[in-house]
């Protein structure tokens, strides 16, 4: 019994079970609406893995939501619900686009500068929520949601400024080429074009996609955040505050400072994610009709990852894979791609139930006892 409990308690096992249940529930829904689940799933997986290009596209789609996922997971560790991650992401895209268009330094300065602009903007934007929470006690969910809309409309305002707006479109000008992703710039160079002409594989995964360095940065950020939380004094403080604010305060830890710091870091990660989307994929800022959900999807990713920064890498890939592959099932057999939302929703739901599983195990162990009394 003990051994079984132990295995059941591991986070990884939970994730596998949650994913399995997700597929099962989606299969039931598919079956009930007259589709063969096995056929749907085989098309889904074909849509995900049958070509190297598909895999590259999944990675490209995963990068930003891994980062927003880490942003959300990081704040969650400190006991803060950073729903403002969407707005911090948008502010990151705005700052990156503005700096990318206004300046034109050599590439080795310009590219980091654009990323830095997005990171800083996202961080400062997040820090406002932190400041309001720390100094005035305003709940971060309230400010977060409002700031999401402020960012959204600020973005649309910037797109329409004469200095940035490209006539005849609903976007800004493209950012200066010096600020674009190194992989993109290499691909467009003489040498790059040469390789792409001659190597079919490279042509497939880089030439035909928006391949960028986002995933590498996402992995570095995940590892860094993991390290910070685990080994540094900052991480120690943040975890202490997240687990017990009162004891931390009594022990001399400055809780207000930590709240602001957390939002600064979480916002910076979200802003970086936005900047990488500009440099790597869109190259320009679009006028938005609705929020793009990169932030909100990060929330799902973080919850699927059970709040672990490294887990966000895998959860982000899974999320991107399912949504990307989901597009093909509609094309191929007309099954609604919304089934993917049901699938992901079920996984998130099951992961949220994870905290209940040890309780259920305890209950079974107690054999019908009602509550734990000393």
């Amino acid at each position: 019994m003990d051994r079984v409990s132990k295995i059941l308690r591991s986070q990884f096992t939970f994730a596998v079970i949650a994913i399995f249940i997700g597929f099962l529930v989606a299969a039931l829904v598919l079956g009930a609406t007259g589709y063969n689940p096995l056929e749907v799933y085989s098309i889904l997986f074909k849509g995900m893995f049958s070509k190297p290009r598909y895999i590259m596209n999944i990675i490209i789609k995963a990068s930003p939501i891994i980062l927003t996922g880490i942003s959300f997971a990081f704040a969650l560790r400190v006991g803060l619900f950073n729903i403002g991650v969407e707005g911090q992401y948008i502010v990151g895209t705005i700052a990156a686009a503005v700096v990318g268009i206004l300046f034109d330094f050599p590439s080795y300065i310009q590219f980091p500068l654009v990323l830095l602009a997005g990171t800083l903007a996202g961080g400062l934007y997040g820090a406002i929520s932190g400041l309001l929470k720390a100094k005035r006690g305003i709940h971060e969910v309230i400010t977060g949601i409002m700031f999401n809309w402020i960012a959204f409309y600020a973005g649309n305002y910037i797109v329409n400024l004469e200095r940035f707006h490209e006539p005849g479109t609903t976007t800004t000008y493209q950012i200066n080429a010096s600020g674009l992703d190194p992989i993109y710039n290499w691909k467009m160079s003489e040498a790059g074009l040469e390789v792409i002409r001659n190597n079919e594989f490279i042509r497939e995964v880089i030439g035909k996609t928006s391949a960028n360095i986002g995933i590498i940065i996402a992995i570095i950020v995940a590892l860094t955040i993991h390290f910070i939380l685990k080994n540094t004094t900052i991480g120690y403080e943040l975890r202490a505050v997240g687990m017990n604010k009162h004891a931390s305060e009594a022990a001399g830890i400055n809780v207000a400072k930590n709240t602001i710091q957390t939002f600064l870091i979480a916002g910076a990660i979200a802003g970086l994610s936005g900047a990488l989307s500009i440099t790597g994929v869109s190259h320009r800022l679009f006028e938005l009709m609705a929020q793009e959900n990169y932030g909100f999807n990060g929330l799902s990713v973080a919850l699927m990852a059970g709040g672990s920064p490294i887990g966000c890498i895998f959860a982000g890939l899974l999320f991107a894979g399912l949504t990307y592959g989901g597009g093909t099932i509609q094309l191929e057999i007309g099954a609604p791609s919304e089934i993917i939302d049901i699938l992901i929703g079920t996984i998130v739901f099951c992961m949220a139930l994870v905290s209940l599983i040890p309780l259920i195990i305890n209950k079974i162990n107690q054999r019908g006892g009602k509550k734990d009394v000393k």
Partner: protein
Amino acid sequence: MRIQEDYAVQMRGITKRFGTFTALDSVDIDIKRGTIHSILGENGAGKTTLMSILYGLLNADEGEIYINGKKVDVKNPNVAIEHGIGMVHQHFMLVENFTIAQNIILGMEETKGFGVIDIDKANKKILDIIEKYGLEVDPNAVIEEVSVGMQQKVEIIKALYRGADILILDEPTAVLTPQEIEELLNIMHKLVDDGKTVIIITHKLKEIKQSAEKCTILRRGKYIDTVDVANVSEEELANLMVGRAVNLVVDKSPAKFGDVVFEIDDLYVKNEKDLYAVKGLNLKIRRGEILGIAGVDGNGQKELVEAITNLRPTDKGEIKINGKEIQNTSPKNVIENKVATIHEDRQKVGLVLDFTVAENVILESFNKPEYSKRGIILKDKAVKKAKELIKKFDIRPDDCENLPVKGLSGGNQQKVIIARELENNPDLLIAVQPTRGLDVGAIEYIHKTLVQERDKGKAILLISFELDEIMNLSDTIAVIYDGAIVDTFEQGTIDERTIGLLMAGGKVNG
């Protein structure tokens, strides 16, 4: 013993397991009708578990329950209530902003029909109970405005209102003043005179001596003995409970006072409701002195401690340690000025429960060069220090440095806090309810440690709601009432009754 009708409760072979832990191991108990029967045991001995089974909150894995000689399957509290059992829990279960009468009838409302409450009828029934047993309460008062002692009476009336013949009281005196305790004992005797049966769960030996006829002792889930209280001494009861000889009186040499280390001058502090909880409080503590603050909970103790530790701002007045003002700075500054605090709520304010013992040990010092270098925590050093303290303070299990502190027993959690706080070599040690909820063994240890620290020349501020603890430990006793120190006495110049009177806001003549 056979199952007999003149026994209100008989429990046979009660066994209860939580996972692999056996909380109760084939326990028997016989409680005669119309008596006060006490159940004695250390924390975790299984007293509350046994009574929770009787009240149907828990179900036994094995064993039988007989009520008034009849076998009853007490599946849930409703069955218990049907059979005339009532329980007053350690933590009251009252609706704060309801009146006393509303609380009493809650769930058993008498109606005039159409769901309209017949409050007059209810009031009459309540007043009958109040009069019969001398339970002086005002049915129209709102719960949040009455004292803890009053709330307890409400709980008792609540049980009686539901027709209880057998009343279980779980640690009823923990929060009461001496006068209130006396009153409670009177009420218990009146109940018994009326033919009711009272079961009292406690670890306070004195009260058992004062009230109960029989006492059943449990130790680590096992039945030890049932004794006639009249024939045993407090010491004998303590030894039975712990299983070894215990020293009930704190060994203590006369105090050698040094200079004044800590001083509070005309302090004013507000509470959450923006009212003054501490009003014009003055205090002085010397080196080598244990100053005990006696008082009923809610007279400003909490706000006082929070003001000293800078968890709460002050409005007026000075708090000085070694002559330096520390009010309205930061908790960190207070710690750096050599003030260490054992907070009342060890799980909420004292420890990060999900952290390991080692992580908790460095909670106040992780930023110091001993435990971190260029922003990286030196885990090995923390673990090494934890191991050292585990040995020094006899924290158990003795290999717990990397276990979450929430897995430790209350006494061992408290030892982790004390170890950490003393590590900072404080000049002032504040101990708030340092033994709350701990068993006799741990209490003995903590009291000894406090006296040792005093003898090392530290100033100690002891705040406790247990008057015995204050009387036992303090060199100087200060009585707090309504946010101010009403009087201060040298140890030995004052008796408990007078202090009890002052604690309740009374005046001492002369």
